[in-house]
């Protein structure tokens, strides 16, 4: 088995540059001589703009331009796309649509709707000059009542964000079989109901957002350099929605990206505005956001309040699930703003046999930053609700939390299995997964560990979350390979790494497939002028779809190389077969390697391509078990033990996989432990820096036990399932179930994320 074989932990080729300060992030690539842009943002959550006076600012030193919403209207620029169509699942009424669908303006000209809303952009020779001028712009605001809390926004007396959206309703969507669910609840022996809160998340990627715009007057072509997961998606919105130009008049280039998690997925005002300003001024314009900028203007995520009810029969079998979510949309409908609360609700079926499910989602506007997809995009939210519900039901009916799952798990004999919300499960070993996780986590030893915690005056709880995701099924991806006369492969892919290590993974994949040194393979991503198409990176799909496309292109390369190899072998093409890096005359020991092909390649090289469109998604699944310890005197608690047993199908590179899992688990723990955006009554963001917005630190975390239990996916030729988000999906419910278990012994019946020390202390104080 070669060093680059499938299943080897090949080290990351990206790391040398990233760890030695040679990474090339957007801010590192601001061209000399570029002008600098600074945004003027709304200090109010909701206000009418009565006037904007830019007179003083425009004549300040170094100022090149001040752009306002009125200027953009005059220039005929569009806004950012407002969502895509609402998804239709079994039971979704055919005519279901948005009730109101406001796009995100590049600059507001009439009314601001959240603190951080974009009001003007100042461009100057230096960033300091632009900042000085921004302070000199006088905006007159007439302040209006605002609402930032999601449940409050849905209430009858709430401040109204849009006159055209009564009740702040963006959409009221549903799926599933409400009649069957009603019948199931009518005959249930027991019904468990809980309300859970998924707090609003600041994604806080390590690299802040940034954008550099250029315009070439001769060709009329705009070039945007920015961090993104989806360069072609940005190109299309910019061309179709904002500038109204042909796609080839917009080039989007992406270099290194310092984390995204969904937040550098859709278009932002600044990305369009630097292009507009570049055209206006005839020179490059750079905007480099600060962390403070990000805290008020990055798209945020999650922010749902969900009520779930589980109907059980007398033997503890699940007979129906009913879910109602109020999901925050924010002030505007972001390009993918409706996705998270709706499109991944099928994950609510979990690992269980559910005869019927009904889910209803109200998307509500509030005076907050728009919400967007974030690691898991609705899957973690669904798993969180379901797995908290399952453990609550177990406690209520007095059945062990593992036992209640065993009674309801789907077994492999069920495959293929059509879930109540329409997924077709095709693989996985859920009962074996549960057993393995219980053994790995030493659940048998829990009672003794709890006793020793209690002897020290501490509470201990154990919590489990078993999940089945649905990923990598929604789109197609293509790949192109060019083999030059030097024998190097240049691979073009439409996926876009934001830290995952795609260059390593894809080179490893082709190296293993083609029997070629990985150092001879260059992976090219992030340039819409060079790469014809791309769905981009999201939804744990880059290997399952993008990798499969590259593998197909590899097959095509072999096909294109075979005539050259046949020539070298002086054999007929049909008699030559490729295996393990060698072209062999079938039935003989006569073989040549790639060098024979390379020496016959003409000046234009060999071109190959491939594409892959899955017919079914993949179903990554796993079981997380967490143990927490609580200091009841202060409410401080920590995760003491953490086990994750997982099935991601075949594993290309275990080290990259574990990196994804660790990050995902930690973000999930972060939600449970500490992460939340907080607004005050005036809509001001109180969590405006890391002094107040808490992300988990290494010292908050236990060692993570990660255990492999793969079953190959039949949905793609690589047999992989996609691991980018699953850590997140299991972690929040496992940890919160453990905390709920610890507190239950003291009579606490409700605890929400994030369980801050004070909330835990208060819950304990108000117990019986």
């Amino acid at each position, binding site marked *: 088995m070669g060093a680059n074989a499938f299943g080897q932990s090949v080290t990351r080729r990206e790391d040398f540059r990233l760890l030695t300060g040679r990474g090339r992030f957007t801010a590192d690539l601001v061209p000399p001589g570029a002008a600098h842009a600074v945004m003027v943002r709304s200090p109010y959550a909701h206000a009418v703009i009565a006037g904007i006076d830019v007179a003083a600012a425009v004549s300040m030193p170094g100022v090149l331009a001040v752009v306002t919403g009125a200027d953009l209207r005059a220039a005929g620029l569009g806004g950012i796309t407002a969502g895509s169509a609402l998804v239709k699942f079994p039971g979704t009424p055919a005519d279901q649509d948005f009730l109101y669908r406001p796009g995100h303006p590049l600059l507001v000209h009439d009314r601001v709707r959240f603190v951080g809303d974009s009001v003007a952009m100042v461009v100057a020779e230096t960033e*300091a000059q632009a*900042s*000085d001028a921004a*302070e000199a712009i006088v905006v007159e605001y007439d302040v209006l009542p605002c609402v930032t809390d999601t449940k409050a926004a849905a209430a009858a007396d709430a401040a109204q964000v849009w006159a055209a959206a009564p009740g702040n309703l963006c959409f009221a969507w549903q799926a599933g079989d409400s009649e069957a669910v009603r019948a199931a609840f009518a005959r249930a022996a027991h019904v468990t109901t809980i309300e859970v809160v998924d707090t609003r998340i600041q994604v806080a990627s390590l690299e802040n957002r940034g954008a550099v715009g250029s315009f070439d007057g001769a060709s009329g072509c705009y070039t945007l350099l920015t961090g993104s997961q989806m360069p072609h998606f940005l190109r299309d919105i910019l061309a179709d929605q904002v500038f109204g130009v042909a796609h080839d008049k917009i080039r989007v280039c992406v270099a290194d990206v310092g984390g995204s998690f969904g937040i550098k997925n859709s278009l932002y005002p600044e990305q369009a505005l630097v292009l507009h300003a570049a055209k206006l001024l005839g020179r490059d314009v750079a905007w480099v956001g600060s962390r*403070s900028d990000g805290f008020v203007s990055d798209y945020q995520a999650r922010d749902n309040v969900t009520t779930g009810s589980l109907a059980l029969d007398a033997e503890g079998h699940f007979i129906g699930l009913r879910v109602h979510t109020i999901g925050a949309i924010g002030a505007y409908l972001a390009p993918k703003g409706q996705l998270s609360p709706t499109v991944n609700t099928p994950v609510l079926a979990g690992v269980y046999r559910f005869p019927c499910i009904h889910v209803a989602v109200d998307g509500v506007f509030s005076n907050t930053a728009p919400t967007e997809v974030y690691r898991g995009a609705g899957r973690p939210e669904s798993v969180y609700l379901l797995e908290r519900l399952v453990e609550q039901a177990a406690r209520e009916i007095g059945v062990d939390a593992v036992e209640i799952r065993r009674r309801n798990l789907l077994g492999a004999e069920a495959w293929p299995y059509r879930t109540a919300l329409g997924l077709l499960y095709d693989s996985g070993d859920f009962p074996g997964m549960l057993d393995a996780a219980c053994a790995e986590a030493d659940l048998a030893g829990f009672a003794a560990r709890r006793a020793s915690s209690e002897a020290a005056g501490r509470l201990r709880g154990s919590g489990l979350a078993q999940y089945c995701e649905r990923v990598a099924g929604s789109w197609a991806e293509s790949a192109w390979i060019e083999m030059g006369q030097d024998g190097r492969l240049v691979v073009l892919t439409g996926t876009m790494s934001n830290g995952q290590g795609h260059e390593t993974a894809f080179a490893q994949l082709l190296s293993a497939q083609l029997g070629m040194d990985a150092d001879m393979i260059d992976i090219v991503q992030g340039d819409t002028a060079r790469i014809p198409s791309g769905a981009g990176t999201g939804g744990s799909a880059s290997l399952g779809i993008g990798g499969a496309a590259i593998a197909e292109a590899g097959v095509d390369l072999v096909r294109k190389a075979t005539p050259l190899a046949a020539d070298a072998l002086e054999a007929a093409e049909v008699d030559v077969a490729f295996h393990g890096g060698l072209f062999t005359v079938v039935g003989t020991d006569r073989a040549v390697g790639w060098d024979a092909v390379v020496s016959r390649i003409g000046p234009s090289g060999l071109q190959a391509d491939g594409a892959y469109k899955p017919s079914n998604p993949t179903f990554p699944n796993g079981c997380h078990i967490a143990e927490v310890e609580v200091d009841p*005197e*202060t409410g*401080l608690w920590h995760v003491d033990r953490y086990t994750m047993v997982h099935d991601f199908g075949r594993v290309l590179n275990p080290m990259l996989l574990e990196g994804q899992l660790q990050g995902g688990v930690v973000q999930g723990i972060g939600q449970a432990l*500490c992460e939340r955006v*907080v607004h005050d009554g005036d809509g001001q963001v*109180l*969590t405006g820096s*890391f*002094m*107040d*917005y*808490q992300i988990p630190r290494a010292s908050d975390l236990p060692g993570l036990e990660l255990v492999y239990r793969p079953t190959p996916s039949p949905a793609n030729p690589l047999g992989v399932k996609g691991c980018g988000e699953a850590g997140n999906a299991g972690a929040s419910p496992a940890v919160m179930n453990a905390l709920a278990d610890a507190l239950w012994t003291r009579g606490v019946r409700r605890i929400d994320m994030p369980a*801050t*020390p*004070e909330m835990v*202390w*208060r819950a304990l104080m108000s117990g019986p």
Partner: protein
Amino acid sequence: MYDFAYEKPSSLADAVASLKANLDSKALAGGQTFIPVLKQRLNKPSVVVDLAKLNLKGITVTPTTVTIGAMTTHGEIALSADIQKTLPALAHMASMIGDWQVRHRGTMGGSLANNDPSACYPSALLALDGTITTDRRTIKAEDFFQGMFTTALEDGELITSVSFPVPEKAAYTKFRNPASRYAMVGVFVAKFAAGVRVAITGASQSGVFRHTAFEHALSAHFAADAIKDIVTPANGLNSDIHASAPYRAHLIGVMTKRAVIEALS
């Protein structure tokens, strides 16, 4: 950051003169508080006077006093073998400030001059009944702190050193603000022959304060049990997104109990 002039004088007299001569001038020590403030454009000094070359660093320990130069960093205090031996509570406190990067830059003088209501050192100074020496006088701890971010320092007055009497026993316990890791409630307990002093930081709207009810009880009987029935009133305590006033009041009791246990161990 706004533009400012930058000076790095090599004598205390020059530094003081420069601060006096320029309206809106500011001293710069470790910059761990001041530079973020500048970057956010929350302060617009005309001149920034760097104290780095004034020879204000150093630790002198006798059996009865610990004296620390204003520019001594948290890291130097945390790692000082002399302080670890004579006043371990102070070394321990320093070791819990920020992270290593902060501790290698941030200074005791900067922290005390800033008097952040969540800072750690003010509780040590007040509980230990320490003395601040400036370019022109000495100031007792009791007189130095005058409410959050406010001290007895005059415009342009520089702290040069701080001295602490060595107690019989002492301990600092810190309930960290979960996000910033500053003190959400920090308690410094010091036992002297003359009695026990308890200073609380992080909790009050008016900055560090002495907990006289605890002091009386602990002076009578230095044991954790001595304070178990004393309720700390919540009024006047801070409420923010991390902790309400009643929770802080509760934590004051818990963290003081733990400090006493630690001082006795």
